[in-house]
Each structure stands twice: as structure tokens, then as C-alpha cells.
């Protein structure tokens, strides 16, 4: 079954969500700039959001008892708010880090050795 010739369905949304997730993880792992890492986190959250909305849509999933219904959209809205709060806190912390280190390179913080 070639997904490119199929009508748009649940699996297409899931593939996009998975791609966003993998991009986000790669971004978090590869970027050394704190802002880049935060962007990676946003990608992961949005990938999850896309999944929730796709799973909640009765159009994409035939059987009514298999969807998570409105809960999916509610979770997506909540996650958007949480992501904003997280970004606000993380950016404030990045600013403080910049003030003390004059850089936002996460690798330059080397006074604490895990």
C-alpha cells in the first residue's frame, strides 16, 4: 500500500507527527544553542498535538468508539498553553544564563559535572 496514492487518512497525520517528533529530538540533540534546543522541544510538543487532534477526529477514524473525541482537542489546547508557559520560563532562565555567562551555548556551562 503506497501512502502517497491513498486518500488522506489517520496514518498520514501520524507520519507527519512522527516526523515532527524525530526532527525535534534531532534538534535537541544536535543544537548547542539553548534557543535551538527550545525550538526542538516545541517541535516535539507540536508533533504530539497533531497526534492528539488526529486521534480525536471522527472523520479520520471510522469507528466512533475508537476516537478520543473532543478530549484530543482539549489536550491540544492545554498543551499549547503549557508550551507557552514553558517557553516563558525557559527563555527567562536563558536570559539569566546569558547575563552570567555572556553566551547561551549549553555546552559552555561546565562548572557542574554530572
Amino acid at each position, binding site marked *: 500500500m503506497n501512502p502517497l496514492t491513498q486518500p488522506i487518512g489517520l496514518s498520514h497525520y*501520524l507520519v507527519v*507527527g512522527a516526523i515532527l*517528533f524525530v526532527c*525535534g*529530538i534531532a534538534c*535537541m540533540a544536535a543544537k548547542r544553542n*539553548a534557543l535551538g*534546543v*527550545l525550538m*526542538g*522541544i516545541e517541535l*516535539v*510538543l507540536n*508533533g*504530539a*498535538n497533531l*497526534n*492528539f487532534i*488526529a*486521534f480525536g477526529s471522527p472523520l479520520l477514524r471510522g469507528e466512533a*468508539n*475508537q*476516537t*478520543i473525541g473532543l*478530549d*484530543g482537542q*482539549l*489536550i491540544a489546547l*492545554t*498543551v499549547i498553553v*503549557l508550551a507557552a*508557559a*514553558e517557553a516563558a*520560563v*525557559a527563555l*527567562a*532562565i*536563558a536570559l*539569566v*544564563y546569558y*547575563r*552570567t*555567562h555572556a553566551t547561551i551555548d*549549553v555546552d559552555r*556551562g561546565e*562548572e*557542574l*559535572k*554530572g
Partner: protein
Amino acid sequence: MNFPELIQSVFDDTLGPGQSLSLFRPELTLCATMIAILLARMILPRWKTSGFYLVLLGLTLALAFVFPWRWFAEGALPGQEIFTGLLAADRFSVALRGLLLLFTLLFVTFTQIAGRWAPEDGAEFFVLLLGAVLGMCLMVSANHVIVVLLGMEMASLPCYVLAGWQRDRRVSSEAALKYAVFGAAAAGILLFGMSLLAGALGSVHLPTMGRRLAELLQAGVDPAQLTALILGGLMVTVGVAFKLAAFPFHFWIPDVFEGATAEVAAFISVASKAAALGLLVRLAGAFVGVPDARQFLVVLVSLLAAVTCTFGNLAAYGQNNLKRLLAYSTIAHAGYMMMPVAAMIALAGGQGSPDAPLSEAQKAVAALLVYLGIYLFMNLAAFAGVAFMRNVAHSEDLRDYAGLVHSSPGFTVCMAIVMFSLLGIPPLSGFTAKWTIFLALVSAKLWTLLAIGVLNTVLSLFYYLRVVKVMTLDAPPADRAAPRIPLTSAAGAYFAMLTVPVVALFFLWGGLSRWADAAAQALFFTTFGP
């Protein structure tokens, strides 16, 4: 159902005989306290007490609303879902919220005695603290994916800020940045895992997810769905393991503890751990009704517990900073506390009559509650000792504790008691805690885990003893004045006061375990019915 009926049903559920709102009063009180502190600052800009008394009042009220004494009565609070299934209100959530609020009450007193920050910052500190506690209260009564996410984020975000509280110190901002970045990444992974699980099971209500999984496995599951389930389960494990600081997601703990103040480290090591364990019990409890999931979860949690415990104890050896040493000790204790959760999963729905294994599983959860109740005092006392020494000696290095027994003998005795209790030697309450969880492992027949637990207790002997040895046997450094913390000072008295329950809970063993047994009753009402 038309719209007015829907509104009426929500109204009845919230305010009617179901009384969702009345069971939610502790959280509402916390919210009101936060707002009151902020308003008080606006009205009285140079308010000297920095909201401390407001916090005390709010926390006492919240603790009274949890009603930790009333549910000893027969049949009180049998367990029910409130807010249309979003939260579970049972004795377990009451007990854990009671522990969290009691800890916070002790903790704000501790920060007031030991805290070294500008008075105008005090109110923000307390507001963030109460926000984190609010999130933790949600975590331990979570019954729905949305509450899991909301609670975890509400508990984590204030902790990131608290970790970087000393804005001008380089290590502090570094700790906060690392904590925020890793924490947000873990939360993202947990969220994605949750989306996979919710999609594959077609529900976001945790007990319904458990039931759907049982139906799905009976009807036969197709490979794609199974992959989604396993991947989702593992991703959720990553997120929870990060909050628990389980190996291999423990690496943030030593850095954050070293960079943050000892006060914040105490908060993260006790309150954050307790909430994460409560969440683990809730998540695992939803799926224990499914035999295949149970086998998977037992192996997963046992493995995490064994590796975390062993790693924490081994890594603690090389540490010369006492806060780092306590960080690894915290990791090891997180491992111990995951052991009764593994026992709970193994025991739930085992062989025998349908009732008996369930009560055995509840005993395992009771063991966890006993451990948490004792750990609260032990670890708070240990970090309090570090903070008081920092205020006097301006150092957290172990070698600055050398010969402390000559200058402040009372403080040294209390610190030694705390160290021996963390190790688990009778007649101290740390022994009670370890003994109870090992008994739970015996009843679950998890012999390997039991052997690892006992071996780890022996392993941990040397680094706890080293702290005591440095304090008592080593010669005090000649080049500076000996630090003095008399027991008559506020700091010394507070420290001695914390040591009392560390000793007393060994002798009040029976009362504590009765309390925990009562708290664990009706835990699985959503999974197996009341």
C-alpha cells in the same frame, strides 16, 4: 443530551451531592493563598514579613481541608472519581497530599530560618513554591491524561525557576538552564508517548485505557497497534523516570542540587519525588488489571529500581561536596522507593481469590507510604543540616565538616542520627522504612530485587559512615575558626526538632503502618471496581 442538560450535569457533579468541589478544597486554598500573597505585596509594598505568615496560614488551612484524621473512621472516603473522572479522590491521594502539605509547612519554616535572599524576593519564592505544590497535588490524584500533563508541568516549571534562584551565581543559572532544558525535553517525550497510547487505546481516561487494553489483547492486536503501544509505554516511562531521577535519566539531579541552594534541593528531593511516585502508582495502577501489561511493567519497574539504586550508591562514593553526595543518595532512595511499586504491580491480580491479592498489593503501596513518610523527615533534616552549615561555614565541602564535633557537638549528633537513619540502622526510622519495603518484596516473591536492595544497603554503609567519620574523628582545620551551631539557636533548634521524628517514628512503627494501611485501602477502585 442537549445543552441545558449538559450544563446541569456538570453543575450537579461539581457542586451537587457528588461534591467534587468540596474534595478539591486543599488545592483551592493553595490558589487563594498564592493570590493573597501577590495582592498583599501590591497593597503593602514594603511588607517586611514577605508573606511568610500568609503561607503558614494557607498551608495549615489546606492541611485541615485534606482531613488526614477523619478518614480513620470506618467507611470514610471509599474512593470516587471527581470532576467527571478527571481526578481520583481516595485515601491514597488524601495521604499523599497530606504528606506533601506537611512537608511544605516544615519547608517554609526551614527557608524562613535558613534562607538568604533579599526580603523583597520572599513573596515570589513562596508563590512559586505553592504553585509547585499545587501541581504535585494534581499529580498524585491524576486519573486522566490531561491532569497528568497539567500536574507534571505545574510541578516542574516553578522548580526550574527555584533552581536558578540565586540569579547572580554562575552555577545557579547553569543548573536552572540544564534542569529546564532536560525537563522540557522529558515532558515532550512523555506527551508524545501519551498521544500514542491514547490513540491506540481510544481513550484518555486512565482506567478506561486499562480496560481497553485488556479487551484489545483478548481480541488480538495488530502489529502496528502493538508497536504504538510499546513505544508509547516506553516514552511515558522516560518522562516519569526523569521526574523520579531513575537511571539513566538521573544526570540532572547532582548538577541541579549543586547549583541550586540546599533549600531548593530539599524541596526537589522530597516533594518532587513523592509526587512522581504517586503518579507512577496511578499510571501503573490503571494497567495492573491486564496480565500481559503487568508482566511487562514488573520487569520494567524492577529493572529501573535495581539499576537506579545500585548506581546512586556507587556514584556517591567519590563525592566531596555534601550536596552532591546527598543528590546521589536521593537517587538511591528513589530506587528503593520504586521497589514497592514493582511489588504492587506483581501482587495485583495474582493467583488466589480475587480479594486477597488486591489487599496484598495495597500492602505494598502502604509500604511505599511508610517509606515516604519517614524519608520526608530524614532528607529534609539532611539538607537542613547542609543549609545551616553553609550559613555558618560558607561551604558545602565535606572537608569543612572536619572536627565539627568539637565546636558544635549537639549539631553533630543530630547530623549523625540523620546519616545513620538514611543508611537504615535500628533503632532509627530509616530501618523501619527499609524493613517495610523489603517485607513487601518478600510477599511479592521478587527475590532478585530483594537481594539487590539488601546488597545496596550494605554498599551505602561506607559513604554515610564517611560523613560521620569526618565530622567526629578528623582533626578540625587549623587555619580557620570552627563553625558553631548551638542547639539553642533557631537553626539548631529546628534541626533538633526534625531529628525527633527520625528517631520517634521507629518506636511509633505500629501507628505509622496502620495509617499507611488505611491510606492504601480502596486504591484500585477504578481498575477493579469498589
